[in-house]
């Protein structure tokens, strides 16, 4: 009897385990479905026409091959994203601010990032007149980390550019007072670079 019971119990446990495994498989399938969804959502973004307008406006005024790339960033609430070249970055920014169709009067965010092969500056602009947003990016060679400053266009870019310089070592030419705003002038190295090694005299 005792043995039988033991067997029964084992069977039960095995059945339960199988159930759990099946449930897990189902779950996995469900999550896989979720992952597939973006592919299904291949229809154009509602912001596509806005991006087209921006690109058109830039091409009309500055000519072709000013932008390296332009796309809708699906992961970032479908924001129209423009990628400028280091030498056209300032011109594009100027147009974005002063062109009436674009009129981006508000600089919401500016920061940089180290992507090992290159560095990037990311600018998020907003237009109160047109109620539209745009992300402006620029890729910079690590060998020549210099791009024009946006402070003459938006005063609000002042400290963010200092911060980017401080933490990543990107120099903004034409900035009125580029300084190491957070770490101080005596700090060695740029901490947010991926190849940064802390310098400590005591170690």
């Amino acid at each position, binding site marked *: 009897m005792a043995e039988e019971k033991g067997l029964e119990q084992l069977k039960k446990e095995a059945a339960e385990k199988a159930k759990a495994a099946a449930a897990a498989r189902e*779950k996995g399938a469900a*999550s896989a479905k*979720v992952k597939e*969804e*973006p592919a299904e959502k291949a229809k154009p973004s509602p912001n596509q026409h806005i991006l087209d307008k921006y690109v058109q406006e830039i091409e009309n005024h500055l000519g072709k091959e000013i932008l390296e790339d332009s796309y809708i*960033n*699906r*992961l*970032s*609430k479908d*924001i129209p994203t423009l990628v400028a070249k280091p030498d056209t970055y300032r011109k594009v920014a100027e147009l974005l601010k002063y062109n009436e169709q674009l009129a981006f*009067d*508000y*600089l*919401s*965010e500016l*920061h940089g*990032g*180290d*992507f090992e092969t290159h560095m990037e500056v*990311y600018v*998020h602009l907003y237009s*109160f007149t047109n*109620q539209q947003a745009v*992300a402006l990016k620029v890729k910079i060679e690590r060998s020549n980390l210099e791009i024009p400053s946006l402070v003459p266009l*938006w*005063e*609000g*870019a*002042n*400290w*963010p550019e200092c*911060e980017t310089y401080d*933490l990543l070592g990107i120099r903004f030419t034409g900035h009125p007072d580029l300084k190491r*705003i*957070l*770490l*101080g002038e005596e700090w060695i190295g740029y*901490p*947010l670079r991926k190849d940064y090694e802390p310098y400590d005299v005591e170690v």
Partner: protein
Amino acid sequence: MIRTEEMLLNVGPQHPSTHGVFRLVIKIDGEIIKEATPVIGYLHRGTEKLAEDLQYTQIIPYTDRMDYLAAMTNNYVLCHAVETMAGIIAPDRAEYLRVIAMELGRIASHLVWWGTYLLDIGATSPFLYAFREREMIINMLNELSGARLTFNYMRVGGVKWDAPEGWIQKVHDFVPYMREQLEGYHQLVTGNEIFMSRVKGIGSYTKEDAINYSLSGANLRCTGVKWDLRKNEPYSIYDRFDFDIPVRQDGDAWARYHCRLEEIEESLKILEQAVEQFPQDGPILAKVPKIIKPPKGESFVRIESPRGEIGCYIASNGKKEPYRLKFRRPSFYNLQILPKLLKGENMANLITILGAIDIVLGEVDG
């Protein structure tokens, strides 16, 4: 004729009116400020660098320590960024808990501002009243999350803890109480002639300046720009509530004072509706994997914190840690206009102007 000499004066880093470790080097000629140079970075902890070695859930406690007067919104902005990238939608009950927690935080933050601002310019008792009410909010948030200031409450896809029994009722009861107290605040301070003469027309700037200097929050709304991300770029469930955006036209400290106090009223409205609509039951956390790996790419989201626009940028390479994380910290951006405001001002107005910007140094330095 009285002859004065130019003098260099340090305000801070340890000065109670700078609300943290903030230093201001000012050049004065007699009583007039010729030049002001802010020196920041004393509280820089390298949150963004630290985050590059942490999983997303592990970063949440670090966000608490940025704007420590309204940590709930900081929690939210990170979770919101990850959720936007990974396409996670938090359950209804969780969203309501988040909104209630964030709005309570907003009120608490504005109360601290109100109390300390008046303390700065010489009125001692309002501080005590403000902190009495703030203590009630903090106790409520403590019951919810287990911490008084550094909540670590939200998670990607929901919240960590459900509301304890009777907690929603407490929030419900707090709303009329706070309204009554707010009325008292107005009677105590708003009509006070000395106060008015200290703040009216002080530290004013135009709408164009505010936009040019990337100001946000009450600092932007005090110049007549009707802009609140809760309304203009609705996130979470803010589109379900009926509330206004308080706006003033003058752009001075007095206008900012009104904007903030009126924002408390609007937050109370939201709380009232949120408590009413609060779902009886349901999950508080969406089905998210234990280890969250947002897809490869980048995302920038921004939400409305008590101090303005707080944003979170994530660059992910599909791993469990962010490749690059950046917070757009409203205090950092708002403080930029200070040298411009102080130039040519009277020394006595320095604290009035600095206080009216409403900065938290943990956030300025990141």
